């Protein structure tokens, strides 16, 4: 197999998860790259929503560096503002939310508001929800990209910025007044997670070839459900890597970053 970096594996796995004939609401960075790769391979009829208001752009000027980048509006079919993008989503026209975060718990609740301290006096204040909270609420399925570290896969997040399954009770999301069905996949460079239908708990679906379920559990601070059908993650081919490196993110803004130790 060809050599690949951790972010290339995440982008490739993200691409695999996205189905054709659907609409993905993308966050900045790897989600855009994953969606571009999917469009170029198995999902030519996949379209992207950018929260600044662009729907179904043709990214011929290259990867937008942010979701408000003017390049995200190139040859779009529909270009309005945030209200336009989120109302279409709230109405039910966005299949996937593709977001990131700093912490996630076993029910897929995500924190991206602060780390340490309190809400009023945070040790590290992050930018805030941005679109993520609304995407996790109202896109049909939520896909999250996270770094696989014990301090990020936590028993309790410090603050729920993006709703998952709450406490895991079947009626939590309905009571919350949100529309989407909730967490669907969590993608890391060493494992792909889904959620158990019955308990709504995070479930290990796939591991990086060479890794075991125990290896992954060690990096997660809550007890995982291990799929009885545990598979190896598919690795990107030479062609996939060529697309990712030469077409999707040729300047390596996101794919060439180093993983923090």
């Amino acid at each position, binding site marked *: 197999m060809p050599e690949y970096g951790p972010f290339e594996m995440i982008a490739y796995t993200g691409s695999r998860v996205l189905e054709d004939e659907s609409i993905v609401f993308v966050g900045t960075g790897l989600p855009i790259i994953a969606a571009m790769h999917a469009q170029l391979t198995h999902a030519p009829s996949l379209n992207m929503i950018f929260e600044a208001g662009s729907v179904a752009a043709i990214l011929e000027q290259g990867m937008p560096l942010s979701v408000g980048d003017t390049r995200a509006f190139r040859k779009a079919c529909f270009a309005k*503002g945030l209200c336009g993008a989120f109302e279409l989503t709230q109405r039910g026209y966005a299949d996937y939310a593709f977001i990131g975060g700093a912490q996630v718990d076993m029910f897929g609740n995500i924190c991206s508001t602060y780390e340490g301290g309190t809400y009023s006096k*945070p*040790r590290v*204040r992050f930018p805030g929800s941005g679109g993520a909270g609304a995407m996790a609420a109202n896109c049909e399925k939520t896909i999250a990209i996270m770094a696989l570290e014990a301090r990020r896969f936590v028993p309790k997040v410090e603050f729920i910025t993006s709703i998952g399954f709450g406490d895991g009770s079947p009626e939590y999301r309905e*009571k*919350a007044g949100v529309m989407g069905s909730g967490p669907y996949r969590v993608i890391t460079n060493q494992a792909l997670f889904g959620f158990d239908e019955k308990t709504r708990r995070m479930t290990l679906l796939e591991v990086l070839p060479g890794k075991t379920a125990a290896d992954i559990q060690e990096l997660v601070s809550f007890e995982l459900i291990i799929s009885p059908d545990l598979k190896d993650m598919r690795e990107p081919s030479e062609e996939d890597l060529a697309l990712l490196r030469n077409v999707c993110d040729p300047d390596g803004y996101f794919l060439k970053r180093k993983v923090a130790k």
Partner: protein
Amino acid sequence: MTEKAASYVKKVSSLSIDEIKKKEERTFQYWGPTPDEARKAAVAKKKGLHDKRTTIKEAVAKYVKDGINLGIGGFVNTRVPVAIIHEIVRQGARDLTLSFQSNSICCELLAGAMIVNPNHVSIKRVELAWWGYEVIGIAPLLRYLAGNSMIQLDDYTNYGMSARFKAGAMGIPFIPTRDHGGSDMELVNRGRMIECPFTKKNVYLVSACHPDVGIVHVPAADKYGNARIFGALCTCPEIAQAASHTIMTTEQIIPTESIRQYPNLTEIPWVCVDALIEQPFGGYPGAVYGYYWFDMPEFLSFRSICDEFRKTGNKDKLKEWYDKYIFGCETFDDFMATRPYSKIKQLRQMDQGQPIIV
């Protein structure tokens, strides 16, 4: 449905009970004009088509006062009203409430001014969804001000803030949204969960947001303030229509004949605009679709000065930057004159000629 769905009841996150109590003990207040006050401001305006052109200096002196709610247009690094922010910093404004969905340089510029001299510029509180630079990094001065409890934050999603401006623009006191519920924003922000009288299911209400002054930068407008926007509308039409007063900068003034020929292209009608200034590069270092791309090195350089202050507590370089580029300039044109033509040309080229209709 139960009144409360959120994680307080369910104890999902580690948000402390003290933080939750703050919301419960607080009576709701609009952080700016109430819907009735905003309505009065609209009714009081002369509605004729009048030439609104002025200078940024005069517009800021007339409308930006201590204690106001300042609604900031654009989105992160796109079509951000930087020229107006520079003038606000120059003239000074204290105890500001900021309202926006997502922004980068505008709020960092105000935050930096507050750090340099809090008697000249200060932010009291912020109703927001997101404050950062996206690919460039998190905002050092937000981190500093929030970490030291120097500003009060009220967190919503990007849709939440946009919907709040939309409610303001619609002249309604609140709007139901399908987000915030079940997240900790439900427990800390000023919205509230109700049972829908029709479906009998829970739905989250957020209050209208009416800035005292909305500031927007648009690609094109006629002299009356009828504005055309290309690329992302962001939430500029809603902010302009919700605000008691709107200051608008535009890349260029276009003939009213063009506006009247394609009225569907007008995103902000003249009647919502109080002051208009033709200010090319008014969104710099942000991007304006059809005109210029964003200046990544400029963002990086300003951010690194801010981050150095955050790490060391030494204000010297920050103060130097403000002295040179804001207080040392009479106008935004003077500031732009410090940027080489080669850079301007490159940013124009990097836009790659996004198609616009003027």
